[in-house]
C-alpha cells in the first residue's frame, strides 16, 4: 500500500473520523473520577489527535506530491542517478551569426582622394539571429583608426541605427563614406530589414523575438566580431525619419536599459500607438523607475516632456532644434557613450 494510494488515504480518513466519533460518543463514560477514566480520556484524545494529524499530513503530501513512496519518505531510497552530460555550447556561436567571409575586409586606407578626410571602413554582412530567428542586413562602419596598428587594442562604443522602416536613413551610409565630416569614433551598425521587411521593436506586439533580436542577437554578434564591449554604457541606438525607427530607439533605451544606455531620434516624432498604452514611452515612465539612460530628440517638433511626460533622474532627455542632421546625431551618441571598459 503506497503512501499516496487512494486506499491508504481512505483508511486514514476513516480512522480519523472513527476516532472523533468514538470520543464524542464515549465521552460520558469517561467522565468519572479516578485514574482509570482519566487514563481513558488521555488515551482516547491522543488517538484522535494522532489519527487526524496523520490523515491531514497524508492528504497534504498527496496534494503537493512531496513523497511518493515509503522509502522516499524515510530517506532510505537509492540515491543513485544517471547523468547524461551533453557538453557545452560552442563558444563561437555569437560571432557566427554574422555570415562568414564578409566581416573582416577593411577597405584600403591609402586611396584617399585629396581634399577629403579619413574615411570609415564599411563592411556589409547579414545577421542571422540565433535567438530571434530574425535575419537582417547590416552595414557596419568602422572608424578610420580601427585597423591602425597603434589602435589595435582600443575598444569602441557601438551605435545601432534602425533602418528597418521604410523610408529610413537614406543618406547616412553615403554621408559616412563621403569623408566630408570626420566619422564618429564608434562602430556604427545600420540595420536593414531582410528584403526591406520590417523588424518589430520591443514596444510592438511581437516583442518577444524583438527583444531577443535588438537586445541579444545583434549585440552579441557585433561584440564577438569587433572590439566592442557588451556593457550598456557602450551601446546607443538611433532612429528617425517618418517611419517608426525613432520610437523603437527610445523604447530600447527605456525598456532595455540594461543593454542600451542612450538613444537619439531625429525628425518629426510620431506617437507609437494610442496614448496610455504600453507602447507609449510616457506610459512606461509612469509605471516604472526612470532608467539611467540619455535621450536626444533632434528636430522632433515637440519638446521631450510632451513625448515622455515628466523626466525624472537618472533619465536625461535633451532636445536639439532642427534641422536634423544624421551625422551630428551620431556624433552626439558617440560622445555620450563610453567604450564600456570596466571601471577600476
Amino acid at each position: 500500500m503506497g503512501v499516496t494510494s487512494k486506499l491508504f488515504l481512505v483508511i486514514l480518513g476513516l480512522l480519523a473520523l472513527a476516532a472523533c466519533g468514538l470520543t464524542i460518543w464515549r465521552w460520558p463514560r469517561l467522565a468519572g473520577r479516578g485514574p482509570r477514566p482519566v487514563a481513558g480520556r488521555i488515551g482516547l484524545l491522543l488517538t484522535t489527535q494522532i489519527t487526524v494529524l496523520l490523515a491531514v499530513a497524508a492528504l497534504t503530501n498527496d496534494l503537493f506530491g512531496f513523497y511518493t513512496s515509503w522509502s522516499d519518505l524515510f530517506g532510505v531510497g537509492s540515491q543513485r542517478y544517471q547523468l547524461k552530460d551533453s557538453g557545452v555550447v560552442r563558444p563561437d556561436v555569437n560571432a557566427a551569426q554574422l555570415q562568414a567571409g564578409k566581416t573582416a575586409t577593411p577597405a584600403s586606407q591609402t586611396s584617399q582622394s585629396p581634399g577629403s578626410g579619413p574615411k570609415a571602413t564599411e563592411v556589409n554582412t547579414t545577421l542571422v539571429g540565433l535567438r530571434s530567428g530574425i535575419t537582417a542586413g547590416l552595414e557596419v562602419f568602422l572608424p578610420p583608426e580601427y585597423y591602425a596598428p597603434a589602435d589595435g587594442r582600443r575598444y569602441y562604443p557601438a551605435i545601432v541605427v534602425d533602418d528597418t522602416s521604410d523610408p529610413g536613413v537614406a543618406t547616412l551610409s553615403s554621408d559616412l563614406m563621403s569623408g566630408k565630416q570626420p566619422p564618429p569614433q564608434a562602430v556604427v551598425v545600420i540595420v536593414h530589414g531582410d528584403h526591406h521587411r520590417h523588424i518589430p521593436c520591443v514596444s510592438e506586439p511581437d516583442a518577444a523575438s524583438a527583444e531577443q533580436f535588438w537586445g541579444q542577437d545583434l549585440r552579441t554578434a557585433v561584440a564577438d566580431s569587433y572590439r566592442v564591449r557588451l556593457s550598456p554604457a557602450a551601446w546607443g541606438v538611433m532612429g528617425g525619419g517618418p517611419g517608426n525607427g525613432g520610437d523603437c530607439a527610445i523604447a530600447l533605451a527605456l525598456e532595455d536599459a540594461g543593454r542600451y544606455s542612450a538613444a537619439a531620434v531625429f525628425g518629426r516624432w510620431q506617437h507609437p500607438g494610442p496614448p496610455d498604452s504600453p507602447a507609449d514611452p510616457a506610459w512606461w515612465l509612469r509605471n516604472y523607475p526612470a532608467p539611467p539612460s540619455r535621450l536626444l530628440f533632434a528636430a522632433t517638433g515637440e519638446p521631450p516632456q510632451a513625448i515622455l511626460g515628466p523626466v525624472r533622474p537618472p533619465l536625461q532627455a535633451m532636445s536639439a532644434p532642427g534641422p536634423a542632421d544624421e551625422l551630428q546625431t551620431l556624433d552626439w551618441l558617440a560622445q555620450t557613450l563610453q567604450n564600456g571598459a570596466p571601471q577600476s
Partner: protein
Amino acid sequence: MSLTGLPLLILLAALTVAGFVAVVRFWPRLAAQGPRSLAGRAGALAVTQVLLLATVLAAANNYFGFYGSWRDLVSVATGHYAASAPSPLGAAQNGSGITINSHGTLPIPGGADPARGGRLDDVTVRGQLTGLSAHALIYLPPQYFQASYRKTLFPTVIVSSGYPGDVTKLVTLLRYPARLVDGINAGQDKPMVLVMMSPMIISGRDTECTDVAGGGPRAGEFWSVDVTSAVERTYRVSQDASGWGLVGDSTGGYCALKLAMLNSDRFSAAASLSGYFDALQDGTTGDLYGGDPVFRRQNDLLWRIEHLPSPPIAALLTTSRTGESNYGPTMQFARDAKSPMRVSTLVRASGGHNFNTWNAEVPAALQWLSSHLAASAS
C-alpha cells in the same frame, strides 16, 4: 513574534499541551446529554486539534523554511501582494545597488578564516532598473581570499529556492556553500561565487520570475539584469555570460531555466532540479500574464523549445522515473531542444518532489555548473 524561530514554537507547543490538559481536566462538564454538550465536545476536540496542527505546521515551516515572515503568510492568505515601493526618483541608489548587512562564516572546520572557509554576506540587492529589492546571501569561496586568485574574476551562480522558500535554507538545509567547499576540496568543483535568493522577491508572491504584464513588477528583469549587474559592480566576478549560471529547485528550477533561455547573452548554463516547464498561474502568483495568451505561451518553456529557436545555453534537467510529475515533460524538452542548446539530464529511478531528492542532487548540480562555467582574468 517572528514566524520562524523557537519563541513561537514554544508558545504553540505550550498552548497545545495546556489545551490537552484542560480538556482532560474539564471533561466531566461536557458529559451531559443534549445538543449543547455534544457541540461542546466537538468544539473541544476541534480546538485541541487546531492547536496541534498549528504547532506541527510551525515546526515544519521552521525546518523546511517555506515562509520567512508573517508578512509573506498574510500576503498569500489574502492574495494582496505589495511590491517594495520603487523609490519615487528611481535614483536613490548611489553605487553598486548592494548593501551588505553583515558578514558571516560557515560552521565548517577552519570556517572562521575566510581563506579556508570563505565568507557569507547577508545583503540587500536594490534593482536600479526595476525598483524591486530582495534579500540575498552571497557566498564567496575560500579562494576569493587567497593571494593566488587575486586577479581571478570568479564564475558566479544564482541559486534560487523553490516557492514558498526561505533563502537561509539554501545554506542550512540544502547546504550549497558547504557542499561547494567539499567539492572544491575534492577537486570536483571550481571555486564559484553563489548568489542565493528566494523567488519571493515580492512578499509572499510567486512571480515565477516573470516581467508581470500591465505595469506589474518586472521580476525577470530584476533577476537577470539588476542582480547580475549589481553583483558584477560589487564583487570580483566574471562579467561575461560564460561565467554566469543559475540553479534552483522546483519553482527555482523553472526560474533558472527560463531566465537563462530568455537572457542567453548573460547566462550560459542553468540547472533545473525538479523544475516544471509550464507557465503557472494560480492564487499564489496572481495575474501574471494580463490575460494575454501569447504572453503566457512565451513563458511556457515546452512551447518555446518546440516553436522558437533554441538559445545558446547548456541546461541540466533533473527528474526521476517514479515520484516526479516532470519526467515526461523533461524528456520531451530534451528531445525538442535544437542546436546550439545543450541539454544534459540527471535521471533517478525514484524520488519525489522533496528535500531528500534535492539534497542528493545539489553536489551533482554544482559539479555540472563547475564544468560549464569559466573564470576570467581581470
